[in-house]
């Protein structure tokens, strides 16, 4: 087989890991038990690997918050000292079976939603939104007495009920919700409005039937219903689990991870397991939640939630969600054109996602670094805009820097040239 044929076959296999995946929400577990390689005294973060000293303020604060949350340090100063001394290890979330949305602060006690790809058996874990605090500790790296109390509340009062529920359900299949939501205006990154409702419809009957005090059940319902974009963590978990299966495919030039740490932005490639290819983190273009904000408030790209783009959603699914594209003033036609543009850098079409706006054509899936370089078309990624204090100040999009693909391609050639 020629190199090209080998790559084509490998890419087909890698993309099929996504297309044929069967993700289900199966459990809620502490990160220490479900996240592989997450040790005691270790804090995970978003984006490509980075040293503590180089981190942006948001990440640094997240590290300190993590140490305080775990009780490894009694004060911020002590936490800072311990991290600098190497007593607390730092690792990047995407190098484990998890995803660092936002700042991506994950420590052993963080409660995680467990998503299993029943096709491959791979399990990924993602942290849920923290109710009224949304990002809270994990996403925004914040830690305060209120957040501590809320985390305790989630862990002790909400999750035992939800865990019982999901186990009694025998797991909740994620893909049907993603697919149907995609037909209802979601692109499953910036917008989960439809998926949230579909999720509620699935779980509410089970919750009502549970042999629990009404009050406890109501608290769970309030949490699920009132947390915006509640389903986001499931879409990320489903994507990560599928991409983990693809990470084992040698010869594949498919992108398996993209993420930023506000300084650098990096990608990972299936056939180059464990390696990162980085460039300066891009800025996002989009709309701010308030006229108070402008670009000077915005942090360069931070977060790993673009696993959903790697799995063929988000920016690649622009056609499914003109309402999200309208954030940038795009019209329906332009949203459709954007997905058609993304088709040119993808390996195949995902028959699970048939899109009304595409006259029921399928969305593209599996970003091929070769095609990105050949066409000069960088993947469109959706995301939330953070300010320097860690607040979500808007939503928008950016393109993955071309430099990442160039570096990856050179490395791939080094690895696989005959």
């Amino acid at each position: 087989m020629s190199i090209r044929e080998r790559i084509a076959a490998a890419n087909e296999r890698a993309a099929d890991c996504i297309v044929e995946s069967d993700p289900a929400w199966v459990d809620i577990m502490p990160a220490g038990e479900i996240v592989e390689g997450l040790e005691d005294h270790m804090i995970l973060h978003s984006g490509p690997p980075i040293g503590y000293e180089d981190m942006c303020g948001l990440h640094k604060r997240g590290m300190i918050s993590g140490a305080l949350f775990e009780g490894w340090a009694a004060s911020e100063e002590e936490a800072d000292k311990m991290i600098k001394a190497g007593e607390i290890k730092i690792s990047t979330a995407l190098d484990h079976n998890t995803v660092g949305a936002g700042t991506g602060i994950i420590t052993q006690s963080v409660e995680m939603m467990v998503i299993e790809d029943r096709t491959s058996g791979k399990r990924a874990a993602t942290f849920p939104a923290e109710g009224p605090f949304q990002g809270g500790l994990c996403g925004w790296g914040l830690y305060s007495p209120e957040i501590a109390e809320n985390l305790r509340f989630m862990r002790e009062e909400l999750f035992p009920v939800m865990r019982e529920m999901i186990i009694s359900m025998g797991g909740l299949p994620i893909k049907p919700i993603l697919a149907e939501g995609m037909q209802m205006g979601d692109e499953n990154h910036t917008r989960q409005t439809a998926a949230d409702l579909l999720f509620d419809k699935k779980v509410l009957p089970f919750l009502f039937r549970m042999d629990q005090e009404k009050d406890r059940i109501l608290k769970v319902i309030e949490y699920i219903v009132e947390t915006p974009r509640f389903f986001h963590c499931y879409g990320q978990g489903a994507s990560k689990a599928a991409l983990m299966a693809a990470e084992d495919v040698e010869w594949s030039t498919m992108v398996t991870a993209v993420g930023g740490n506000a300084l650098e932005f990096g990608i990972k490639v299936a056939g180059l397991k464990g390696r990162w290819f980085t460039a300066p983190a891009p800025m996002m273009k989009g709309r701010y939640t308030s006229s108070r904000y402008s670009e000077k408030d915005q942090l360069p790209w931070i977060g790993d939630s673009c696993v959903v783009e790697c799995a063929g959603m988000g920016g690649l699914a622009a056609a499914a969600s003109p309402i999200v594209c309208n954030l940038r003033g795009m019209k329906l036609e332009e949203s459709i054109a954007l997905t058609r543009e993304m088709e040119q850098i993808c390996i195949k079409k995902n028959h699970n996602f048939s899109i009304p706006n595409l006259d029921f054509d399928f969305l593209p899936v599996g970003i091929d670094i070769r095609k990105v370089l050949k066409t000069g078309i960088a993947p469109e990624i959706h995301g939330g805009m953070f300010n320097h204090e860690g607040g979500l100040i808007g939503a928008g999009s950016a393109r993955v820097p071309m430099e990442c693909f160039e570096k990856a391609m050179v490395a791939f050639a080094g690895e696989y040239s005959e």
Partner: protein
Amino acid sequence: MAERIAVKKNRYSDSVSLMSVSDKVKKAPGVINAEVAMATPANLEVLASLGFKLPEDIGANDLVIAVSALTDRQADEASAMAEDILDHKESPARGREGNVRQYSTLDQIDLDKDPYDLVQISLPGENASEEAEKAIKMGLDVFIFSDNVPLEEETRLKRLGLERGRLVMGPDCGVGLIRGTALAAGSIIRKGNAGIVGASGSGAQEIACIIEKCGSGVSSIIGTGGRDLYPGNDGLTMIAGMKKLDVDPVTSVIVLVSKLADNNVMGKVLEEADKLNKQVITVFLGGESTLYDGHNVKPALSLEAAALEAVRTMTGEMIEFGFSEQQIHELAQHEAKKIGKNRKYLRALYCGGTFAEESMIYLKSRGSSLKLFSNLKTAYAQKLGSHLKSEGHTVLDLGSEDFTNNAPHPVFDPAIRFGRFLKEMEDPETAVIVLDFITGPGVHEDPVTPFAEAIRKHKENNGGISFVTAVCGSEGDPQDVPAKERLLAEAGAVVAGSNFQSAKIAAAIIESLNRINETNRTDERDVSVPGYKERDLLLYKKAGPPRGIVSASCSQTEPVNDGSGTESDKNEDEGLRVINIGLRNFYDALRKQNVKAVHINWKPPVKQSGKIKEILDEFL
């Protein structure tokens, strides 16, 4: 500072849409803060933090417009703007349905599900042939507007087309008319029985328009591109085109038009033409009549003559078209008398390359009294020192590379030609200005009015220049050709029915002027201001109502072989379906004709760095 709060009770809009409303309003003049949001507790908090004082009785189901601006008026305006946007009043484009067919490349189109017949390509020359090849291989006919495609590429494409049974029109194909659909810069010609195969743009278009003006119609214009009769290309498209028309049940007469080209190839084309069942009329501009010796074709020496001969073949009637020789003579005297003292030169400013050529051939044939200059390299004129400055009698092709290297062709954007027109009007030696106007759904929406207005002003000020014009266009064109012709005549310009007549009239005026100047009888000059009545004198006469259009079933020529016509019969009933790559206005032109069309959002291929290119060559 002024503040405005407006509450819309029980009005819902989703937060994403509202964010974009706020964003737009914030950019309005004088606006300091603008928030358009549902009055949820969280949003109320934001509003309060911005210092807005809100009424107490509002809740999450209410929509709030909160604006602060420098002045009262600006605050009012911004608040009103927010309401307009919410009510979708701000954008007239709204309600226009989105087009779900958005493709970036040809191969994204699944022809089984979304069928098309033809790809119209107007990309830069270096990119055109790649897309054309893809199209031919997908089983589609191609129409290539692009120029600068290497000759060997053209030959390769045309041979591939022959192999696959696909028609390859162009490169450098300006106009086309396939199954009633005008392509590129072409006109929407009335349907009829004349089939035209033309190498050039304006030549084929002119013949079609004259046929229409004579009351007949056209079945097809098959463009071949300017180099089809070069050795190598061997007339592949012209031959394929005429064969197609020979079996087309609607076509009863075939017109071949080209500039003079390679003798051997022209001979070969004529041999093929001899084999056809239908009458063939041929105009190879500049060709000697001996060229046609021994062939069955009917030669014509001008585009107009070819058109009139086609009409005669279809209707059995030789139409008296436009101005008679006597009328031209009188018109020339009338015009010459009004030309100002010291004005002596002809300045012809053409958009159509064939028109420039046809005029020069004609002017030259009038004898040596007209020494011509041109920006074109031609046997009929001396080359100008600079294309930017006229000398003596000058004939310009403003569609040639001299003028279009860094600017759009004048049929799309008249700006450069209009500038030159004004400059020629300022020249005290300019006596006659000749203008052609080309219309059609794919060209400028109103190429005529600015010129007509300038002519009117010049005439009102007794400027002393004579203007001779001709509109190459059809009644079906969106520009409303009859109205534009009247506009020109009312402004005081002569309006001829064809370019050939316009050249004739211009030459006659110059000759008449020379006679006046020779006799030096200044009393003959007429300085009266033209009035509306003059229009009747200046505007050519149309040839009556449509006539002689025959349907396929009662074709006047030999009956068509039933077997060969079946497939094209079937296709003829359905409209042409076109994929457009390149100029967006050609897509808009198709939409104006209610043709099924899709525009490809093509982007030029990127150039990779040396190292990456090397790797991709190996790995992709």
